[in-house]
């Protein structure tokens, strides 16, 4: 189907209800995968082991950024050409994996699945979150000079260059918008692909309403700093 070795990285924190379905969808789509168990306090690890799901078990919780970076490191260590972040909570649709891989094979370093590109329907989040996304899009436009319609999308594929860069440094929490700024600063080719997302099927979103103002301030600041810093840091 594809010439590249592709790995689907499924970060999972307390996702015992959804993880088996998510993995089945990825397998049905014909992809290799790795579940990154981010120190879940529920039964996620046992559910994975009992169902013979390939799992990278972080001995303690690192947050989404640390879990995704562990996936990048796994892909680098095992020689994959492309890795795709695919959330473990059932929001993402495995039908679009092919499109993301094609975008990378066509020369993009980072391909982002966007809910807002083209005429897609499906779950597009609440009004407040959409206001937040518009703000972040504007911020990325002004400071990183890049047009992204869905900056917080966690459905994204990385080529080899991006995998290497994200292995040596990746934001710890709320990493998506910040990593786009880093990619733009590193003059990576960033491409968006229209996708449809579903409402979460279980678990709890990592961003609750009260934390959203803190989230916006933090991510905005992170984007500015990413755009004005040199790229010699090791993290």
């Amino acid at each position: 189907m594809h010439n590249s070795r592709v790995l689907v990285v499924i970060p999972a924190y307390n996702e015992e209800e959804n993880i088996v379905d998510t993995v089945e969808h990825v397998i049905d789509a014909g992809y290799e995968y790795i579940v990154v168990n981010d120190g879940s306090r529920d039964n996620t690890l046992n559910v994975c082991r009992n169902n013979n799901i390939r799992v990278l078990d972080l001995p303690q919780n690192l947050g989404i950024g640390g879990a995704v970076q562990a996936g990048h490191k796994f892909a680098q260590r095992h020689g994959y050409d492309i890795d795709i972040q695919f959330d473990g909570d059932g929001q993402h649709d495995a039908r679009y994996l092919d499109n993301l891989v094609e975008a990378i094979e066509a020369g993009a370093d980072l391909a982002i699945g966007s809910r807002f590109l083209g005429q897609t329907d499906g779950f597009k989040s609440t009004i407040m979150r959409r206001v937040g996304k518009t703000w972040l899009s504007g911020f990325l436009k002004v400071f990183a000079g890049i047009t992204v319609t869905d900056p917080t999308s966690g459905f994204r594929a990385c080529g080899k260059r991006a995998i290497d860069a994200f292995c040596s440094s990746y934001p710890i929490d709320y990493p998506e918008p910040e990593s786009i700024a880093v990619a733009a600063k590193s003059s990576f080719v960033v491409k968006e692909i229209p996708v449809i997302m579903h409402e979460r099927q279980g678990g709890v979103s990592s961003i609750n309403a009260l934390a959203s103002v803190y989230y916006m301030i933090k991510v905005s600041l992170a984007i500015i700093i990413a755009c004005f810093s040199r790229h010699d840091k090791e993290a």
Partner: protein
Amino acid sequence: MSFLLQIIVIVFCVLLALYVARLVSREQLLLKYSLLWLVLVVALILSSLFPDALFSISGALGFETPSNFIFFVGLFCLLAIALSLSVIASKQTLKIKNLTQRIALIEFDMNCGKESASGQGARGDNEDEAC
């Protein structure tokens, strides 16, 4: 500055220095982080031995009273120490994160390497599927 006050400050500083030294010798405080506190102790002892120098510096810098000068310097030192602690905590967060990831990667390799070599895992036939 009364003689009694000078004695109290000096005794306090010596006790603090001894406590810091004890923490270092019991390996509850690293030597490099103890230097900061020892420097603070020396500065306090010097200013209680030679209060006139302190008063004239304070006056020269335009502080209304020497106590304001002391509060200003003390606050500034504490802020600097607090910031350096944040830097240390951040570095450690990154190190722990990298170690956590490395442990998971090595554990994965160990489990899968062992099972594919021996051909029989602890959990039966489908073992290789999970690797």
